[in-house]
Structures are given as C-alpha cells and as structure tokens.
C-alpha cells in the first residue's frame, strides 16, 4: 500500500523512507508560529532552561514567526505589557518573521503566513493556535499545539512524540452553484461527520471541486477542518498552489510538489457532490449543528461579522461588496468587517470594496481576531444574535454566554445584512 500526504511529509521531516499511521515520530519543524500567546511560550521556554546552566536560545530564529493579531491594538494594559515583552524577546533572539501592529505588514497569522511565503508544501508547520490547520491549504502538515509544546519546539526544533495520524479522504465532486462557497462545503462536511468526526485524523481533500478552488477557498476549508476535530486539513499541492506561491506569496526558491500515492491507505472516504449543496448555516452552540439556510427559520440578527482568518480574504470581501454595493444594511443591524490582513485591506481599498461596504453602513475594522473569540471589539449584548463568517459558535464565544452566534458564508452574511434576518443569498434581499 502507498502513503498518504501526511505519511510522506512526516517521512521527510524525520529522514525516513516511510512512516505509517500509528507510528511515533519526532518531526523537524520548518515553521513555528505564535501570536500573543507567545507571552506564555516565552515563560515556558525560560522554564525549560532553568537550572541547566545553558543560555536560553531558540533553535533557529529564522523558523519562528510571531504575529500580533488577537487583541490589536491592545485593549488593556495587561495585553500591551504582554506585547511589549514579546517585542523584547523577538529583538533579543533575532526573530525576523515578526509582524507587529502595522498597516503595511500586519494582519491575522493565518493570512500572514501564506501571503508572506512562509509556508511551503511538504513541510511541517506548528502553531499555538488551533486554526493552524489552515496551512494545509498549501500542502503542509500544519497543526495546532499548546504553549508548552511550542516552548519545547523553540528549544529543540522538533515536535516530540507525535503519533502519525490516520487520514480521511474527502472527495469533492461537481461544480459549486451560484452563491454556494467553500465555506458552505466545509460547514456541510462538519455537519456530516460531526465535531469529533476527524479527531486525531487528517482530512485530505481531493476531487475536481478542490482542484478548481482558489487557495483562498482552500484556506477556508483547511481552517475549519479543526472544527471536525482534525489535526490538519491537507490539500495535495498542484498548479494553483504553485501559482499562489509564485505570484501572490512571491516565493523565489525551490518548491517541492508531491501528492499522496495513488494506492494510499485511507481510514475512510467521504464523497460530496458540491453541485447539490446549498448555502449552509451552523446554528448555536456547536459548529456541527449545520442546516441549509432555508431550514433555519426566521432568525433576527443584531450583528453581522464578515472577515477573520476564515473568510476575510479578497474574494470574500468581493462577494460581500457585490451584494451590498449601492444598498443599505437594515436598520438595527451592526455590520463589522475584519479583512484578514493589511495587504488584503489595501487591495480591497484599491478595488473599491471598502467604500462599497462602508457606504452600505458597515464598519471596517483593522485585521484581527478579537471579535471572533470575544476578547476585543464587537462583543454581543444579552440575548443578542450574531451571524458571522468566523469559525466558532460555542457558547460565550463572542464574549457573552447569554448571546447566540450563527456561522455562514460571506454571501449569506451580506444578504442577511440587507434584511436583518438570516437570508438565502439566492433569493436576495427582502
């Protein structure tokens, strides 16, 4: 039997001919990403060196990326002090892949990594963020770890004691109908296999609907793979991956393109015909509580959120701007837009999307994660309902356990902004 994508990647990262699901390995890491929680990683890293007589020094400053995005600009003195501590550490350890709070190079980590060319196919990427699964969109084995695990990576350059995950193959056939987007595909998949359906597994994506999908859409799909419990999403790299890396991420060096073996061993195969999909909505309070938009019923919305690491890319903003251009969002509805990075923000400015959104009544925020996880900006009042293109609707997620969050695509979010109720974009406003 042949090897899956993750088995091939882990074989390379451990210098072995082959590794198999279930085996325990210690792969070398090509990129180790953290955001504000680097403050905790630093503590744990220093703790590792305590009483060893060794000077704390990261294994390779060029392979560490730190992006400030979770609460930017700082909402409190505590956060500002944590961010200051991170800047001092970055300077002392000579970490170059550092993205501070800046309008030229700042943004959300899961957009900064791909657009800066930091992620290459066939490599191992770890991040102290569960949505690190995103970077499987570029063919990397990319997964979330905790802060102490990251401290260990900073010291050793390896992840210790990793069990090679088994793989579920997802085959996406057909063509997406109008107003049905990659977000609807991943919501449908999570609903189908459940929030723990891929726990400890890799979701490896195949089929014509994936081949025809932009890297932006693949990032959305891999981003939310963790909501089915997956260790990583993985798209075998192809011509689109190369195009993105060369043209958008401006990668100059060698890019190694390989896919799984044709006779790779999968634990399970899930087939989805995307031409039969509808716009989907994940209802409170679990991401696998997914229904077609027409079956949600009449739900009044107080706040619409478009953006984040899940759906804050240029094509997402284009979808929203096209629906909202020349129109007004409904009275009583607040709409917040979080572009995924300042590069995207600038592109959207140039293309007029930002003006279209603002004129319709939206508030365009700086790129950041704070609203999605309820730590900074856009909190909900008691009994309020949010409809959001972000990735989680857990109780308390947007800062209030007495509020509700529904998840959807940018098309559903924009169409709903016009009516004030969860609305099918295929039917338009009213």
């Amino acid at each position, binding site marked *: 039997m042949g090897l899956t994508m993750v088995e091939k990647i882990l074989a390379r990262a451990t210098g072995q001919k082959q590794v198999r699901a279930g085996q*325990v390995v210690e792969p070398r890491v090509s990129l180790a990403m953290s955001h*504000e*929680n680097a*403050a*905790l990683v630093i*503590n*744990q890293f220093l*703790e*590792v*060196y*305590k009483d*060893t007589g*060794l000077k704390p020094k990261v294994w390779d400053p060029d392979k560490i990326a730190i992006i400030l995005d*979770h*609460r930017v600009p700082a909402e*409190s003195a*505590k*956060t500002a002090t*944590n961010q200051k501590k991170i800047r001092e550490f970055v300077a002392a350890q000579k970490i170059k892949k550092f993205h501070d709070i800046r309008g030229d190079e700042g943004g959300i980590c899961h957009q900064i990594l791909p657009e800066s060319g930091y992620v290459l196919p066939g490599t191992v990427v770890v991040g*102290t*963020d*569960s949505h*690190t699964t995103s970077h499987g969109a570029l063919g990397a084995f990319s997964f*979330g*770890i*905790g*802060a*102490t*695990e990251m*401290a*260990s990576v900073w*010291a*050793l350059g390896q992840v*210790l*004691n*990793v*069990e090679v995950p088994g793989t579920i193959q997802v085959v996406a056939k057909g063509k997406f109908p109008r107003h049905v987007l990659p977000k609807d595909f991943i919501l449908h998949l999570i609903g189908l296999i459940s*929030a*723990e359906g891929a*726990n*400890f597994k890799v979701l490896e994506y195949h089929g014509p609907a994936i081949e025809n999908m932009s890297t932006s859409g693949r990032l959305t799909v891999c981003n939310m793979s963790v909501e089915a*419990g997956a*260790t990583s999403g993985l798209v075998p790299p192809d011509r689109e991956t190369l195009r993105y890396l060369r043209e958008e991420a401006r990668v100059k060096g060698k890019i190694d393109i390989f896919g799984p073996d044709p006779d790779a061993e999968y634990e399970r195969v899930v087939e989805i015909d995307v031409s039969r999909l509808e716009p989907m909505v994940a209802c409170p309070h*679990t991401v696998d509580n997914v229904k077609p938009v027409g079956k949600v019923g009449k739900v009044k919305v107080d706040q619409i959120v478009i953006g984040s690491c899940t759906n804050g890319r240029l094509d997402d903003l284009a979808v929203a701007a096209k629906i909202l251009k020349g129109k007004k969002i409904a009275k009583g509805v607040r709409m917040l837009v979080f572009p995924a990075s300042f590069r995207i923000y600038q592109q959207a400015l140039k293309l007029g999307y930002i003006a279209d959104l603002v004129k319709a009544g939206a508030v365009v925020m700086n790129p950041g994660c704070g609203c999605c*996880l*309820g*730590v900074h900006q856009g909190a909900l009042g008691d009994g309020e309902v949010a409809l959001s293109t972000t990735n*989680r609707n*857990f*109780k*308390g*997620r947007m*800062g209030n*356990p007495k509020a509700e969050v529904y998840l959807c695509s940018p098309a559903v979010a924009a169409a709903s902004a016009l009516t004030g109720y969860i609305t099918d974009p295929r039917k338009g406003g009213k």
Partner: protein
Amino acid sequence: MARVVLKLGDDISTDIIYPGRFMATVLPTETPQYAFADYPEFNARLKSGQVPPGSVVVAGKNFGCGSSREQAASTLKGHELVVVARNFARIFLQNAINLGLKLVVCPEIEAEEGDELEILPDKIINKTSGKEFKVEPLPRARQAIIDAGGLIPYTRQRLLEKVASRKKT
C-alpha cells in the same frame, strides 16, 4: 476515592472551561480563578476552596474541543481536578498531559454529581451506583512525557542530552 463535583455533556469547548475574555491572563498561578467562569456557582465553589484536590469533573465526548489555549488545562490543574470523559479533543489532551493535569478516558462512564468514584489504571468503579467502567489508556506516544512529570522536565532532559552529545562529537 474521589467525588464527582461537576457533570457536563458533550463537546465542552475551551471557551466554556476558560472563556476567551480572560486570555490575557497566562500565568498558571493566576488562571485558576477563571475556571468555568460562566458557571458562576461552580466557579465560586472552586475559588472558595470548597472543592478538594482530586475531585472529579465528568463529561461526555470531545471534551476540550476548540481553541489551543493552554489556560484551559492550567486552570483545571490549578485546582488539581481530575477530568473523566468519554473522549478528549486532541490539543486539550496534549496540553493536559504536558502540564500534568490528570485525564481519564472512559468511553462508557456513567456518574452523577455527588457520586464517589474509585479510579484505577484499567477501570473506574462508581461506588455509589456499584457499576464498573473500562478505562482506555492515554496515547502511548505521550507516555514518556507523563513519566518525566510533564513536558518541561522532559524537554529539559532532551535538551541536556542533545548538548551532551554535541560536546562528545
């Protein structure tokens, strides 16, 4: 013997264990005050010292799903709680092992608040109901970390080995 102090359902996310709005707090000495902050009654009992170390939280499947925030493990470790669940989400499980929080995977567990449990390596005996439930081992990949007393001492040990082998060559 350990008493069940909280019974929860399936898919308990890290947002419930440790709400995002307290994430600027990172120190393991400070995170315990926010454990289950949105369950004010239980949080108050934890903070007032009414829950003795070794008390048990029982949950369904996919405990700890969601964010990679390590505070979700350190906040429970701070109270020396034991979590018995049908299964755990990957990152939470690894964080818990790394910090030495005790987790027990028990796919059939049935227990109510107030029940007394005897937790053995291979089974849990619910002394109140008289029923026994099989315990599944934690991932063997993680055993070395458990044996070393957590990931920090394990990494320190590995780092010193690495430095020593570099000196030899």
